[in-house]
């Protein structure tokens, strides 16, 4: 299992964190959206991460005993199907007959914190790529 496989691992981490960040941003932007094309208020989305072996175009089928390293991937996007939050706003255009409006069940503060976490994880993956580039360069320097 060559150091080069580390690049695939960290790249998968970056992709996954970016996908997660995109969903969080979408949640934050739609925290007050009461009307969607599908009907009803916006429903919060979340990315589910699972460990996946990291592939790289240069690796062969016959890897060493340690096997393929663990990367990560978004296995599915879950939509929050719990009951929306109902607020009493009789004058609202989306109010039902009782004067209640269905709002997305989103806690912006929570999603902001998650977004910062995703950013930090993303940066850690970038640092990993940078470090392996350094180590590979030092290996090449052994030839000098």
């Amino acid at each position, binding site marked *: 299992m060559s150091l080069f496989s580390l690049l695939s691992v960290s790249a998968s981490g970056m992709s996954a964190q970016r996908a997660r960040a995109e969903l969080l941003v979408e949640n934050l932007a739609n925290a007050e959206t009461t009307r969607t094309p599908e009907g009803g208020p916006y429903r919060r989305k979340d990315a589910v991460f699972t460990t996946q072996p990291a592939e790289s175009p240069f690796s*062969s089928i016959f890897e*060493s005993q340690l096997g393929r390293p663990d990367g990560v991937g978004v296995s599915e996007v879950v939509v929050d199907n719990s009951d929306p939050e109902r607020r009493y706003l009789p004058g609202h255009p989306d109010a039902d007959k009782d004067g209640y409006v269905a709002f997305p069940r989103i806690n912006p503060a929570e999603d902001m914190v998650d977004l910062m976490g995703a950013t930090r994880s993303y940066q850690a993956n970038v640092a990993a790529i940078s470090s392996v580039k350094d180590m590979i360069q030092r290996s090449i320097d*052994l*030839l000098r």
Partner: protein
Amino acid sequence: MPLPISSITIPATREAIAPAIQMPGDSRTSGEFRGVLEGAINSVEKSGAQAEQSVSNFLSGSGEELHTAILATQRADLAFELGLQVRNKVVAAYQEVMRLQM
């Protein structure tokens, strides 16, 4: 009876290290010199083969580390250079011995 040192099939190392010089004189002396050279050639060929295998493994993506392949190459280079020096010394010593015997 002349004892050509190089063989007919020519791996590069063998050709570089053991030029086809004729070594006239008694076979016992030439045999000892030849033995030293053969030893050097074998060592060089072995580390050269190992280096080739290591680099090939690395390129085929089967998981060999870059630094392993590079170090194997360096080992082969060192063995080769040492082999060259051994050849130089052996040839010089042999010629000296032959000169003294004249």
